[in-house]
């Protein structure tokens, strides 16, 4: 059903038709799969890079001015690329790893690669929030740098890290919709194929509902977990 020949109300009604939704479960699964795997890859690499940025900061645990400046510059360059271009750039990389440049797994590489620099910056800004006094106290106790990172820096900033991760997962989700156009499947693929190419706006609407629900869920869970941690620590 299209908005071109039906009323908005009719399209909305049609978008709730179980027949449409039956066809959507598969793509929903694909979207969830892509979001989860890309987010996990982003989490691992983003955390590592974010921690390295934080400790090599001129005021950090192991100040390395040149390395900090250069990596900061590289990250800013990567971040200034539009996501669409990032996906195109990642095509050869995906081919190198999976032997083909399209499909879900190939797009996961592109999504993760594009979100890692952003997430690394978010991790850095969370870690920089720690009160310097806590690091000093840990140093005065005789902790080495590894214990300071693992036992003080990360746990103390955990609520903020979780909030940052939540925001980043949502941006991964929105990228999976974009990657749908490059053969990754998922909700984005459906939205483009039916909504844009065939003017089936009822299906487009259904995709929009799903994305809204997913974003709400992710944000809700993130908020809940980080709030719960703050509550446990009696900080709110």
């Amino acid at each position: 059903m299209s908005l071109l020949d039906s009323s908005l109300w009719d399209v909305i009604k049609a978008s709730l038709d179980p027949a449409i939704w039956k066809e959507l479960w598969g793509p929903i699964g694909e979207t969830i799969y892509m979001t989860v795997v890309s987010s996990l890859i982003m989490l691992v690499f983003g955390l590592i890079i974010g921690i390295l940025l934080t400790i090599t900061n001129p005021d950090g645990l192991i100040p390395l001015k040149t390395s900090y400046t250069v990596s900061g510059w590289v990250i800013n360059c990567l971040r200034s690329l539009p996501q669409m271009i990032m996906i195109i750039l990642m095509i050869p990389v995906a081919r190198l790893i999976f032997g083909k440049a399209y499909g879900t797994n190939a797009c996961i590489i592109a999504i993760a690669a594009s979100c890692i620099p952003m997430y690394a910056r978010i991790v850095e800004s969370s870690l920089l929030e720690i009160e310097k006094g806590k690091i000093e106290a840990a140093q005065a106790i005789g902790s080495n740098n590894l214990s300071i990172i693992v036992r003080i820096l990360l746990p103390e900033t955990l609520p903020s890290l979780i909030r940052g991760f939540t925001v980043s997962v949502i941006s991964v989700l929105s990228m999976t919709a974009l990657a749908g156009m490059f053969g990754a499947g998922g909700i984005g693929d459906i939205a483009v194929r039916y909504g844009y190419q065939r003017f089936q706006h009822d299906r487009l609407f259904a995709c929009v509902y799903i994305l809204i629900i997913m974003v709400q869920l992710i944000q809700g869970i993130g908020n809940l977990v980080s709030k719960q941690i703050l509550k446990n620590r009696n900080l709110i």
Partner: protein
Amino acid sequence: METYLKISDLHKTFYPHGKPLKVLDGINLEVDKGEIFGIIGFSGAGKSTLARCINRLETSDSGSIELGGTDILKLPKKKLLQERHKIGMIFQNFNLFDSMTVYQNIAYPLQIAGVPKEQIKERVQETAELVGLTEKLKAHPGALSGGQKQRVGIARAIVTKPDFIISDEATSALDPQTTIQILDLLKEINRKYGITILMITHELDAIRYICSRMAVLEEGRITESGQVRDIFENPNSKTGELFAKVFKLLQSAELTHGGGI
């Protein structure tokens, strides 16, 4: 008396915005083993910098710092971490770890020092009892009052049975009653374990209450040092005179109002 801390000709210059700022300008200081030694000075005099140089949280430019016969400034990095287990530090804003419970905060230095697991529990219990926190071991610092937080800070500083404690404005964020309790606790620790304490403060009463000897720090130099009573009665430096004046004013106020610390 055996000297425990001996600082000789210590210099430190910062370069904020590229301009040199002499913060420690030839510090000479001797603290005896087992005493509570006070350092008083106005804001910006360099007190915290001096404290931080002693356990090398801050680098020094030149001079020497001997602590129990060890030349701190010459220690290699690894040895320095071990040496720090023998130096407790207490801070004005406590610097407790919010992610840990009180128990975990107190246990942390023991874990870092590699104390066997079985002993940790016992030591934490014992220390918590000494500082009066047995009821609060499962709480997080966020649930504690300022005085209780500083008790955790003290417990964390003494749990490894250090020889020396640096207290940088430990009571400056506390109300008068709580200040007295915390000072009493420090006194008790000093007496019970013979721990040498360096008390850095800008509070006259705190020094008068628990220190035997003191030094006045003024623009990066020790302008006078000696018995607390002598300095209050017969000050020889600008800061000393000012403090003595304030002190006399306070005393006369106490007489008229009957107030304490």
